């Protein structure tokens, strides 16, 4: 059986890729995909810690993850809707151009 550290490393890698995508890319959709990746890294951590934790029979971790995936789906829908609204307004999805939060 793969040790816990393997899962955690995979999770950390996944998170880093997601973070890199969210920070570096200019396209809002890619940024949203990065965020989804980071969320799934967190889900993977949940599963790993549940499976290797002191009480794997209780199914708590998987329950959390199910909720989290449901919420992620809803969040993705909301996020895409926002991106579409932003696109309609600015005629672009390039985040460098969307700076109206500037103080």
């Amino acid at each position: 059986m793969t040790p816990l550290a393997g899962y955690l490393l995979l999770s950390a890698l996944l998170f880093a890729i997601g973070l890199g995508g969210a920070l570096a890319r200019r396209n809002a959709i890619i940024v949203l995909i990065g965020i989804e990746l980071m969320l799934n890294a967190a889900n993977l951590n949940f599963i790993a810690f549940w499976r290797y934790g002191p009480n794997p029979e209780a199914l708590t971790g998987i329950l959390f993850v199910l909720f989290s995936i449901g919420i992620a789906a809803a969040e993705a829908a909301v996020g895409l809707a926002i991106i579409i609204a932003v696109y309609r307004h600015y005629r672009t999805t390039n985040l460098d151009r969307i700076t109206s939060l500037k103080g």
Partner: protein
Amino acid sequence: MDWIVPFLWLIPALPLIAAGAVAVVPKNRKRFAATAAIASMVGSLVLALIAFGHSLARIKGGQSAPEVFNFRWFDLGESALRLGWVLDPLTAVMLVMVCLVGLLIFIYSVGYMAHDDNFTRFFCFLALFASAMLGVIISNNLLLLFICWELVGLTSYLLIGFWFHKPEAAAAAKKAFITTRIGDLAFLLGMVWLNSETGTLLFYDGGRGCLEQGALSALMARATSLGIAASTGIGLLIFAGAVGKSGQLPLHVWLPDAMEGPTPVSALIHAATMVAAGVFLVARVYPLMEASSATLTVITWVGVLTAFFAASIAVAQNDIKRILAYSTVSQLGFMMMGLGVGGVAVGMFHLITHAFFKALLFMGAGSVIHGCHEEQDIRKMGGLKRLMPLTFATYMAGMLALSGFPLLFSGFWSKDEILHAAHGWDGSHGPFYLGLVAAFLTAFYMTRQVCQVFLGEHRARAGGALAAQSPCQPHESPAVMTVPLVVLSFFAVLLGFVGTPAWPWFQQFLKGGVAATDFQHLFSAETLRLIGLSSVIALGGIGTGWWFYGRRPLKVADEVDPVESLRPDIYGVLRNKYYIDEIYEVTFVSLNAWWARACNWLEFWVWSGVARAAGHVVLGLGWVNRAIDEYIVNLGFDRGCEGVTRGGGWFSRLQNGQVQTYLRVIGVALAVLVLLLIWGGRS
């Protein structure tokens, strides 16, 4: 009928309500104005007659103390200010007189003022005046009396200046107001003094009032630093108020000028009622006056000198109303003299009879003026006997009453009463002889006036530079004006019989007693001698007047007066009213003007100099303040602000609006946090 005493306030309240109602209706509601004012006077007259009947019944029942109704107006700390009204024979008689004469004059005004644009305003003022005058009469408190007294003065001002577009009328109104104010100031001082001595201004208050025995003896015992008793000082100060209001020497100057007002006003205010308020005031506080013989002496001499002095001026006047005005001043002098030498009853009797016949004369004069198209110069009249028969007949009744025509007319009995009392006065015989002269002059000038106005031929168009181009004949006045004249002439004739020596009902009523007929007194040698003497005086005056003016009436308007051709020097002095107005002009008025200029100079250079210096000091301080403000407070603050702005600009660079930058910050912060946790956990 005891209910009348607490409800005495209704008598002045009714005209007051009428005045208020008339004041708010539009200007063209003439019928409403006249109806409201007259109806309120009828109401007051009915109530006054009830009060009179009540007073009469009480005296029949042997009670003569005044009935009072006092109430608390408001509290001042420990003490309370109490007002009230009083019903005694004096009040009752005055109420009936004022209501009756007022009512007749109101009715007369409907005719006289019919064509005036400000008809409603006139009735508003008249009703207000009646209300104030009735208030003076009923008040049982010197303060309440003073309030009403000033209201009377105000309405007098308003009515004299009723035709304010005439400069003379406006000036006369001001003169009347200011001159009476001089007397009122003394009155006010007397009132304050009285209050500080006795602690109350109520006249009658069940033994604690200021006219009752306790307070009076305290006042008489109290000596002042001037060497006179407090009662004398207070009495003289209050009398000064009466001098102003009643046109006594030396404050009489306003009364003849007051004739600029409409004639009904002259009749009501400046002949029958308001000027009598001064006499009434002296009668009201008579216990106080009586407390000191010095006060009575002053009253007597002021009265008799006024009587003589004004009668002599009236001889040489040509304005029909001005003659009557000086006659009023003179008769008021008689009243004062009557109060001084004989007491309340003597003065009041003349006041009441005079009110009726003087109102009659003024209204007759108004009828003449109305008929002659606003002509007031008696030289341009003449021959009106034929043209205005009813006015002539009633005017004759008034004139004979004023002249004191023997036995038949009221003026004879009341004036005889005064002369009788003056004869018996133990101070001096001077007033008696001066009074006789004044009575002679009265008969003389009234005969002169009647001869010039009513006898001979109408002179308006006949001859000389004075003749006016009056386009139409004089005409008799309408019934609304002549009926009040007829009613008044009845009173002018008959009223004397309530106070003859044989049946002194009036005098006894005022003293609170019941009169008995006493023909012995009438036929006693002394009475008969005095009656004879005053008859001779009156007939002599009328005869002399006839000799000068009646035998051969003036033919043209600018003919020289017969008396003037006799003694032009004396006549000139008289015609110019002893130059009193001119003397006042060069003394008091110019003194006042000089004083005002001095005050102005002082004000400009001294006081405002101080003020200006103070102003400049403040201005200098202002400069210093401004410098501190600008260079210390503001500069520091500005620097602070700049710093904050710069800091803000620096920080605002963080807020570039790019979501990813924020996200980077969060990422870096997360990494730092994780590293810290790892290293922190290790130590």
